[in-house]
């Protein structure tokens, strides 16, 4: 009896020792680093703190989605960088998903040529480092574009030049009403879909939801144009002569080449991984599922929509989430071609000016951690929604 008790205590102690040692080692490393940091900062006459965020930044940023100039604060500069990072990530995720789905489905095509072309696309773009692809687009491909005076014109409304892509600017009146109408339409579609699902599951009635949804999405916003005073006009870019040899475009929106190169490289690179996920997902749905669906009389579209896709999505979503996360993190390579993302603006210029390495690097890393965690929380929620609901 006594011996047994001793043995249990012995085990407890045996478990405790490695844990205590690990914690102790970790703590001593942290304390060592912290004291060193304190001494170093003391020597250089800087004190730890985030007050510098309110100081005037006095540097310019080439591309900003919100109002910014040198007189704004470092905090504002951080926000500009963050928004630019989010912008390029969203664009990249959007195009990578479309391209990835197309390539993934093409790899399963019964057309031999299409399947081979898709396979080689994946093999080529997956095995070249992303940074090289960014360099290629930015330093080699986009530099081959013409100067503004003979830019490639798309019907004279949009121009592609070495200095960027000039597109028309949207000028809205009463944009809020339009936005509200879109939201209203989306809510209506949501309720329509849940109603249709109920009808289908309880009474076996089929409601053509796709057509009705599309109609709602077009008709309600159209209504605001006709009756509620919403209107949209465009401001087209126009060629302007600055000096006898220098031309530029005035008006419209200029998409800088850094953004184009980064978005192109990110989406083409990530698309290869998404394509592999899509392929694995569709292959992962058993043949029996399709045959069973066909045998109860579903047509080809219904099989894809009701049987194959819901199951394939379950396999596709988790690894694709990872790819979205990777894309967001990879957007930090922007610093290599001077696209003003958070790394370049904040961990680059702001750090050089203030010398506050610890604060700035921690803020940058924490920002990325937050971005990563929020994407994974959102995708986990979506994944749960798509997961098997056992009844």
């Amino acid at each position: 009896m006594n011996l047994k008790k001793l043995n249990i205590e012995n085990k407890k102690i045996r478990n405790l020792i490695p844990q205590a040692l690990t914690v102790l080692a970790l703590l001593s490393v942290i304390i060592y680093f912290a004291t060193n940091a304190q001494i170093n900062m003391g020597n250089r006459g800087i004190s730890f703190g985030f007050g510098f965020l309110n100081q005037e930044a006095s540097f310019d940023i080439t591309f900003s989605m919100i109002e910014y100039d040198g007189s704004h604060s470092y905090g504002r500069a951080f926000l500009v960088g963050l928004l630019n990072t989010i912008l390029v990530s969203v664009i990249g995720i959007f195009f990578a998903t479309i391209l990835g789905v197309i390539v993934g489905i093409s790899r399963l095509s019964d057309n031999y040529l299409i399947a081979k072309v898709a396979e080689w696309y994946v093999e080529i773009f997956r095995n070249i480092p992303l940074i090289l692809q960014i360099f290629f687009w930015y330093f080699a491909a986009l530099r081959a574009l013409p100067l503004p005076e003979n830019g490639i014109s798309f019907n004279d409304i949009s121009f592609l030049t070495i200095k960027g892509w000039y597109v028309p600017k949207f000028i809205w009146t009463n944009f809020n009403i339009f936005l509200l109408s879109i939201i209203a339409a989306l809510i209506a579609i949501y309720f329509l879909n849940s109603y249709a699902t109920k009808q289908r599951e309880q009474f076996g009635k089929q409601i053509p939801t796709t057509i009705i949804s599309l109609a709602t999405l077009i008709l309600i916003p159209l209504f605001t144009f006709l009756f509620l005073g919403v209107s949209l006009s465009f401001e087209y870019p126009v060629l302007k002569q600055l000096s006898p040899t220098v031309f530029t475009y005035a008006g419209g929106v200029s998409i800088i080449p850094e953004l184009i190169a980064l978005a192109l490289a990110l989406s083409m690179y990530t698309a290869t991984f998404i394509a592999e996920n899509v392929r694995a997902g569709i292959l992962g749905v058993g043949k029996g599922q399709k045959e069973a669906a066909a045998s109860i009389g579903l047509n080809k579209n219904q099989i894809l929509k009701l049987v194959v896709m819901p199951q394939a999505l379950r396999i596709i979503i988790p690894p694709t989430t990872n790819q979205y996360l990777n894309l967001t993190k990879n957007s930090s390579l922007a610093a290599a071609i001077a696209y003003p993302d958070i790394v370049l603006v904040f961990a680059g210029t702001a750090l050089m000016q203030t010398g506050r390495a610890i604060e700035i690097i921690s803020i940058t890393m924490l920002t990325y951690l937050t971005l990563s965690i929020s994407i994974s929380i959102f995708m986990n929620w979506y994944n749960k929604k798509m997961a098997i609901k056992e009844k």
Partner: protein
Amino acid sequence: MNLIAKPSKENIKTYVPIGLFLVSLSFLDVFINAFFNFNLMGFLPSQLSYFLPLILGFIGFYLIRIEFSGVRSLDVLNKNINSNNFNALLTLFTIFIIIKSIPPMLDWFILEANFAGNSKDDCTGNGACWVFIKVWFNRFMYGLYPDAEQWRINTAFLILFAVVGVSFFVAEKLKKYFILFLVFVFPFLGIKLISGGSFGLEYVESAAWGGLSLTFIISAFAILFCFPIGVILALGRRSSLPAIKYISIGFIELWRGVPLITVLFMSAVMFPMFLPDGTFIDKLIRVLIAITLFEAAYMAEVVRGGLQALPKGQYEAAKSLGMGYWRMNALIILPQALKLVIPGIANTLLALVKDTPLIFVVGLMELAGMIGLAKTNPKWLGMAMEGYVFAGLVFWVICYAMSRYSQNLEKKLSTER
């Protein structure tokens, strides 16, 4: 009436020759247009002559689409590239695009490219200027490493290849000594040889290292160190001891949540702040530590996948034999778990190799960095395309070979159940 009947086995004799003729005509038209800049159908109105190959090819493919024709090659053709109208169109588009893109590519890469010479002025053609690569090749391989000392890098890599090569042929018993040498002795021997400073070798500071050889050095060291750290982190994350478990989770998720570039920034500007004043750790070593820890976190997640996939019975069986924690993991669990995740390990190592160019952040220049340096040289402006195509090719060959090798390894090691 008979002429517009649906293609079938009855009219195969008339339809197939006509169809094949139309398809070949459409390809011939695009081919001649692409290679000789001559439009066969130029006599037609411009809109029509533009779309004519497509229309001809489409009709041709329609005519030869005969199910169960009894001709084997025709059936194979129809099944693979011509199963319906949509597929026929896709096939035509793909082939047209391929034919159209061959001549400009061929021109740029070979026909109009310049190979001879030793300055930019020798590049007269419209194509690539491979002279650029030729002149800078030494720098692309060895960075700024002094020319006279480059035999040291060569020797280090030669020893590596020789030892690896020999170890494939020696008896199983001796193999483990070779592996021990490669893992524990060679890395330090090689680094000593390359950096010098003793045995009468001239010291070469790591800032001068560069080019493709630096890519290999960093990849090799990071792979060597990130693997054991990753395994330990994975075991830690699965540990029943809460403190160890949560420290491992925190460590792994911290590295996985941030981009490598910020980690490198950290190693460059933030890490020196954490060391006692006056201590200096070489830039290359700091970068190596950063990359190793970063990739170890990814490796840990891969290994954890393998650990989770093992049935509980394996653990119980090992314990019932009286094995302790370390013996159980080393002899029973890890060999099986690692085998399960070979593709994942290979992908992580591939990602590591592809991440090495990022060391430009701290001012080290491997292949991509050297090309960046060369293309800004005033004598060689405008060579970005050649440089990055070359670097892309080199990296592609390395990464493609690695992924192929891992696929083979996976096949070789898979034990049928």
